[in-house]
Each structure stands twice: as structure tokens, then as C-alpha cells.
């Protein structure tokens, strides 16, 4: 073998080695990061099971009605105009309730009982033991995309918890009432 042929062989080997190295680097650098199985499972399963459990939970202080039934009654008793409750539980007293379930025998209070109980449960579970940020909301019926908040006309009936600034796992539950089909939404914020 001539010297020039040997040099060509050497260059070819170097090129092959470099190509292998490049392929190897590309494989590991550009490898798509899969979402953590546990985190992904927790967030998606959590949102749906919290919503499901919440709606089935009995309000023992309200003659055995479930929170789902009380929310339905709340919507039916406040009528068309949606008042706004916040997580701090501030009630708009300018709206009179036109009937509905009276848990304590006096004025109808299905809104007070159900919304404060939801607030308490979410605070102690998601906000307390699990330490995840969340936003729970009830919206009046909107056309188009479900669980979409609109400002004009406002469709937010109730909100609890801080908003998710980044990614989130979302669950939206339509809840039919005699007035409209309200939407119950729960966003579980992804941990950064």
C-alpha cells in the first residue's frame, strides 16, 4: 500500500469516527424529555378524582344533600345574573335568592353552604396536604369552548384558589340545571 493510500484510509477512519460521535451527541442532546410518569399521572388523575369526589360529597349540615345537588340548587336560586364569589368567600348581597334549599331552616343558603364547603375541602387537600396550586371555578353556560372564561358578559359564578400561570392539568364538568348547563372547572397547576 502506498503512503497516500494509507493517509486516505486514516482520513476515512477519522471521518467515520466523527460521524459516529456526532450521531451519538445528537441522539442524547436532542432526545425529547418525556414528562415524568408520576407527575403526569398525579396531575391528570388528581384533577378528575377531586372533581368527582367533590360533587358526590354529602353536606351533612344540609340534610344529606350532595355538594353537586347544592351547586345545582344554588344556580337555580340565584337565577340568570351570575354573582361573583371568590375564594375568600365574599358574597354579593345585592342579588336576592329566589327560593331553593335552606340548610339551616331560614333563608335559602345552598350557595353559602356548598361554596364555602368546596373552598374548605380544596384548601385542606390540594392547598394543604398535597401542596399544589389550583383554581376551581364555576361558569355559567357559554357557547363554544367549554370552561372558557369570558369577561363580556361575565360568566364566572365562583372561583377558588390561585390561578395557574404556566402549564396545568384541566378538568371540565358540565352540570345541568333548570336555568342552563353550568360548567365546573378545576385546573391543577404543574410543578415547575
Amino acid at each position, binding site marked *: 500500500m502506498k503512503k497516500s493510500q494509507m493517509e486516505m484510509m486514516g482520513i476515512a477512519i477519522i471521518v467515520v*469516527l466523527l460521524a459516529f*460521535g456526532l450521531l*451519538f451527541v445528537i441522539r*442524547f442532546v436532542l432526545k425529547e424529555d*418525556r414528562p*415524568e*410518569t*408520576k407527575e403526569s*399521572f*398525579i396531575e391528570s*388523575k*388528581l384533577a378528575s*378524582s*377531586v372533581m*368527582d*369526589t*367533590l360533587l*358526590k*360529597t*354529602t353536606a*351533612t*349540615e344540609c340534610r*344529606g344533600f*350532595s355538594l353537586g345537588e347544592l351547586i345545582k340548587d344554588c344556580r337555580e336560586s340565584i337565577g340568570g345574573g351570575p354573582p361573583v364569589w371568590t375564594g375568600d368567600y365574599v358574597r354579593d348581597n345585592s342579588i336576592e335568592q329566589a327560593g331553593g334549599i335552606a340548610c339551616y331552616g331560614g333563608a335559602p343558603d345552598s350557595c353559602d353552604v356548598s361554596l364555602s*364547603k368546596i373552598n374548605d*375541602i380544596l384548601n*385542606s*387537600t390540594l392547598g394543604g*396536604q*398535597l401542596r399544589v396550586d389550583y383554581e376551581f371555578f364555576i361558569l355559567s353556560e357559554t357557547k363554544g369552548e367549554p370552561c372558557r372564561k369570558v369577561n363580556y358578559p361575565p360568566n364566572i359564578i365562583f372561583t377558588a384558589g390561585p390561578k395557574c400561570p404556566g402549564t396545568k392539568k384541566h378538568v371540565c364538568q358540565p352540570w345541568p340545571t333548570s336555568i342552563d348547563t353550568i360548567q365546573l372547572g378545576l385546573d391543577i397547576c404543574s410543578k415547575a
Partner: protein
Amino acid sequence: MKTKSQIQLGETIAIMLVFAVLVGLGFAFYVRISKISLQKELLELEEQRAIQKVQSIINLPELICSSERVISENCVDLYKIKAASEKKIFKKLYYQGVFGSSSINVTQLTPAEEEWEIYSNPKGVSASAFYLPVVIHDPIENTNNFGLIKILIYTK
């Protein structure tokens, strides 16, 4: 005094040495990356096993709510939990195969806070916690209470 052929032999040996060092470094790098990747896969596998355990708990006939052979989803029976906790039914060897190194606690949050330990086998160094909200059904009072199943899964 070295001859020309000796110098050429020295050059070849030096090139072979450099080549061997480069190949060795590349191989070490590959082994390291593969090890990290394998560890990640193992962790993923352990997490999948943990999720399987979580799923099996909420589908155990020993705990779930049923009425006239109809099973309620995402629901556990209050009295089955109490019995499991008091009589330690999950201490049997069979359940150790199902749940492995973990501990399972059920907490009732409404109407009054109560907690039951239904399984405990804390063997391992680190533990990852899973929480699952469930309905705790009281068949006597016919009420549904808000509960949380806490599963601590231990890994070596």
C-alpha cells in the same frame, strides 16, 4: 542514533496510542451516558409499578363500595376501611406481594377528620407519596364523605 524506520515505527505507535486513548474516552463517555439513561428507565419503571399499586388499591373488592353487586367508581366503604385497619387484614403474606414496600393510610376530611392505617411495610430508603381523593361511603348513614388515600412507596 535512530534509523528512519525506527522513527516511523515510533510515529505509528504514537498514533495508535492516541487512537486508543480517544476510543477509550469515547467508550467511557458512552458507558456513563448509558448508565444515566438506564437509571432513568429504572426510575420510570418503579414509578409505573407504584402507579399500578395505586390503581390496584382503589379497585380492591376488600375496600370498594358496592350495592346489589353494582360497584361505585372512586369510592371506598367506610366500614371496610375500619375493618381493614382494626383486623389488619392486609398484613397477610398475599398482600405483601400486591403492595410490596409501602404504607397506605386513608384520611377522612369531612364531616370530621379521621385517619386509618390499612397497610404498613416500610422497607426501603426513600419514599414517594401518592395521594388519591376518594369518596368514603357510609352505608348506614347513607352519606358520602371526602377522603384521601395516601400511599407511601418505598424504594431501595
